[in-house]
């Protein structure tokens, strides 16, 4: 099998490499790929959308429709992970172990015993193993997380002028929550940012994107043609495009953040939403 795979792979690779002789050279500015459409975007992008970052203008305006589905892909992946993994009740039941936080004593609740409240700060639920408290990591993360989040907001808002945008910002936001979940534990993260919030926020994010498109449609222009939003936003057509891009980027950020967090919740706990990794 391995040998066969190797032969197949080498043959395919050889075929592909063999053909590259006809390809344009690396960095060739006169290749068809670099002269036809891209020239239009570079030359007209800023005038059309008032966004100096042409990647952003192509992403969210010229090919905004692709990007809507890109967001949808993330949304679908989040839904898929939830759908595949999430289980409310584990067959056979699990031992209930709690740590009494002030004393650090670990308690095991017998079957039928009285359970502490789910959001109790005194008793914290543990899973099967003893987990040591990592004070330095926890406190470091607690300090870093707000900065990550502020930077994330900057990345989202500044997507017009520098590399960045909804995806990158959304992932940063998600990273902040994931960092919290890793440094503390998953249960606490879920208490801050619940599963339901993630699900609804994901829907909301894509809804902002698709809804903006649909709003354009209601205003009489084509789907996602932000120009139609000009009367609503009180600006001219080009600025409306610029604002439109920002709106959908925010939607993307919402969706990506919520979904990445949700995927992490489900993957890290195999759908049980317990203590996690």
């Amino acid at each position, binding site marked *: 099998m391995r040998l066969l795979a190797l032969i197949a792979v080498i043959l395919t690779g050889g075929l592909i490499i063999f053909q590259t002789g006809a390809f344009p050279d690396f960095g060739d500015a006169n290749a068809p790929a670099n002269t036809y*459409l891209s020239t239009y975007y570079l030359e007209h992008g800023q005038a059309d959308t008032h966004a100096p970052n042409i990647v952003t203008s192509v992403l969210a305006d010229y090919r905004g429709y*692709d990007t809507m589905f890109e967001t949808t892909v993330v949304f679908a992946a989040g*839904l*898929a992970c939830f759908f595949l993994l999430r289980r409310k009740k584990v067959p056979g039941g699990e031992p209930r172990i709690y740590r009494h936080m002030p004393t650090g004593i670990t308690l095991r609740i017998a079957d039928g015993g009285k359970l502490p409240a789910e959001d109790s700060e005194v008793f914290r639920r543990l899973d099967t193993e003893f987990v040591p408290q990592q004070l330095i990591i926890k406190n470091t993360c607690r300090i870093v997380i707000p900065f990550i989040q502020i930077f994330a907001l900057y990345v989202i808002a500044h997507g017009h002028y520098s590399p960045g945008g909804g995806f990158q910002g959304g992932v940063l936001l998600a990273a902040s929550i994931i960092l919290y979940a890793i440094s503390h534990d998953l249960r606490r993260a879920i208490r801050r940012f619940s599963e339901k919030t993630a699900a609804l926020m994901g829907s909301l994010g894509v809804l902002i994107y698709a809804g903006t498109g649909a709003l354009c449609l209601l205003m009489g222009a*084509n789907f*996602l043609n932000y120009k139609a939003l000009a009367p609503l936003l009180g600006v001219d057509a080009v600025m409306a495009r610029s604002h439109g891009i920002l709106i959908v980027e925010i939607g993307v950020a919402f969706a990506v953040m919520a979904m990445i967090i949700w995927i992490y919740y489900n993957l890290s706990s195999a759908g049980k939403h317990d203590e996690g990794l």
Partner: protein
Amino acid sequence: MTHHFPALLIIVPLLSALIVSAMGWINRRWCFPLAVAALSGALAISVGLLTQVMATGPIAYKMAGWSPPIGITYVIDYLNAPILVVILAVALLNLIAAKTWIEKDFSEKIGAYLALYLLFLSGMVGIVSTGDAFNLYVLLEIGSLTGYALIGLGKERAPLSSLNYLFMGTIGASFYLLGIGYIYIATGTLNMADIASMIPQLAESSTLFLALIICMAGLFVKMALFPMHGWLPNAYSNAPSASAGLIAPLTTKVMIYAMVRLGLTVFTPQFTFSRGMLSEAIVWVAVAAIIAGSLLALMQRRLSRMLTYIIVAEVGYMVGGFWLGNEAGVTGATLHIINDAAMTLTLFLAVSAITWKLGSDKFEDLQGLFGKMPFTMMGFVIAALAVIGIPPTCGFFSKWYLITAGINAGQWAFVGALLFSSLTNAVLFFRIFEIAFFEPFATGHGHHDHGPTFSEAPLTMVVPLIVAAISLIALGLYSGDIVTKLIQLAIPAGIA
């Protein structure tokens, strides 16, 4: 508003998927009605589009208002308008039929399931209606990703099958993406019509030819053309019944549509069929697919597995017919996309109803089924006749064009394979009819009036099944109209 139909066709399932997903967390009872309403709406829009196309010709819709090739365009023409209607009709019928299954299997996660269902559908609809080569890739991934999830929560080996499907699907989609990259290198554009307009000047370009091969190879993996079919039987037969009826009829067919679309309106027939060697080789692969699919189907002892191998053979029909490269072949392949979607739907709906009542679809459990579930079996019989290719069911007509194409092209192996597969299908299905009709054997010499007791599947399953079965006959009777008023207009000039 009719002007915006091409966009609405996608937006309606997409937005409703979002709302259904949110509803899953708020009030689960609303999910199912919302999904049905959304699909009905989308179906109505697709019918509206079909009538528009038939009345006024192809429609182009500029997403975000940018003209091609700068922006993304949607094009509804004679080729995809009927396929859109079929896709949405299949999805709607299956959704209604799957109601009881969904409530049983996914009661907790109904919002997520239905949202994935609708997203899958918006992916499929998008693939069929887009006029942009890269946009097709994005939608392909939407369709695939949701498909993996819809399959993954099934019976027995479903997660493993789904994971294997994911590997193969990703390889296929990535090859397609690579092919698009090659096209982009050669032409600098992604718009299908724009690419087609440049093809004549680049007829000798080896880059483009490699792009054609790679794109097609990717699609072949995704449509499970033999011998890349390994993932399909496991994935489809282990899928939950509610998903099998959606994915089995649509995925492979939509991939074949993508092949036709790419071959006809991106690479243009002159270029696609210019290298005789390639076409001939693919036809031979298709012949192998037909024969292997039929033989493997013979070896199965479970209804749903048998059907999945029939799908493998049917993929061979369409691929072979298309790559014969003559008018009858392309017509037959396109017509068969529509017919096969309807046939597969009917078969899988019947299997789903049978599994619902019996808890199994093994051959030995099907005894006396004609007495127990006469309506389900009636639908099954009609679908079986369509698959065998008995007039006036629709399967006969597409097969007719395909065989004609084989004769015209002098490709006798293909003709022989089609006839062989018809006969094998007849054996396959009559074996089941015999089990369901004769066993358990009548005691004595037919002097008893108490056959198996009547116990039919719920109405929500039977009615869509019967509707689908009737549509098979209707599609057959109107296949002349479908061909002359739609498909023949969709075939560009330059095909012999």
